[in-house]
């Protein structure tokens, strides 16, 4: 059986890389699940704490926001990866003819 060597044009390769990048950007946003769960947990615990101790509302609120912001970090990393793939794609420049 003969091996057929097909050479693709640069446009085809570019389209392929761009399509894969779009899929990658969508996949990267799956990272949004983690912060969603984490922030929901933080908010739930915060509501619980306010229910138990309504006079400490201010402290609980700022502590909760701090925790939620830290939990958000991984989701933001995912978002940044997706944005780099969409707007500043480093892979397209690597195609050589």
């Amino acid at each position, binding site marked *: 059986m003969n091996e057929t060597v097909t050479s693709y044009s640069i446009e085809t390769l570019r389209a392929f890389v761009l399509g894969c990048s779009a899929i990658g950007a969508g996949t990267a946003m799956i990272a949004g699940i983690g912060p969603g769960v984490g922030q929901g947990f933080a908010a739930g615990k915060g509501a619980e704490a306010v229910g138990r101790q309504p006079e400490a509302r201010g402290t609980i609120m*700022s502590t909760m*926001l*701090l925790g939620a*912001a*830290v939990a*958000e*970090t991984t989701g*933001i*990393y995912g*978002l*940044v990866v997706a*944005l*780099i793939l969409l*707007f*500043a794609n480093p892979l397209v420049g690597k195609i050589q003819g």
Partner: protein
Amino acid sequence: MDFGSKYIPIEIGGLTVRLSETIIDTWIVMAVLIVLAIIVRIKLNRFTDVPQTRFQNFIETIVESMDNFVESSMGVKYKYFGNWFFGVFAFILLSNLSGLFGFRPPTADLGTTAALALTTFVLIHFMGIITGKLGYFKGYFEPIPFLLPLNIISEIATPVSLSFRLFGNILGGSIIMGLVYTIPMWLRVWVPSVLHIYFDVFAGCLQTFVFVMLSMAFIGDKISEE
């Protein structure tokens, strides 16, 4: 990485300088802040011991709440950080809210947020060294000396996560707003306004607060209490 920001090329002595939208919007924000500061400074001469005008009450409330905020998270001894953090707070807040007036927020550029996070990084280690002296360097070898590389990585991760958080939130918001503005004309009257309240006002204020509070928490963490 300017992520779709437009720019004007300018020739200066044979070099092409890219004057991006971010830079121009930063200048506008700076100009507004400077004008506000000059107005407040001029009115300061007429301030009385007991506030009589609404304006004086307003200014005193803002400055006092910022001072209390710093005092509650860093302690009375480091209350002077309020001066710096008030400036950062005002700049980030105005930058985030500038999206409401049709500007591209300066904080939607990694350059701006990285610069802000680097100032925090410098402050963390400067305060760590002048308050902790040798104890600061000893902290890198704890709990066991073997963990030195991991400790250094975690120190570098601090400004990275600080800058990416602000940048990602604001840029994500402005990209979603840009997508929403492609809807039919008759829907453009009310749909974007609701989203502007969420992405620009709510997320903008929250991220400003989070940036300033995390900076204070990180700096307060490194300051050693003798």
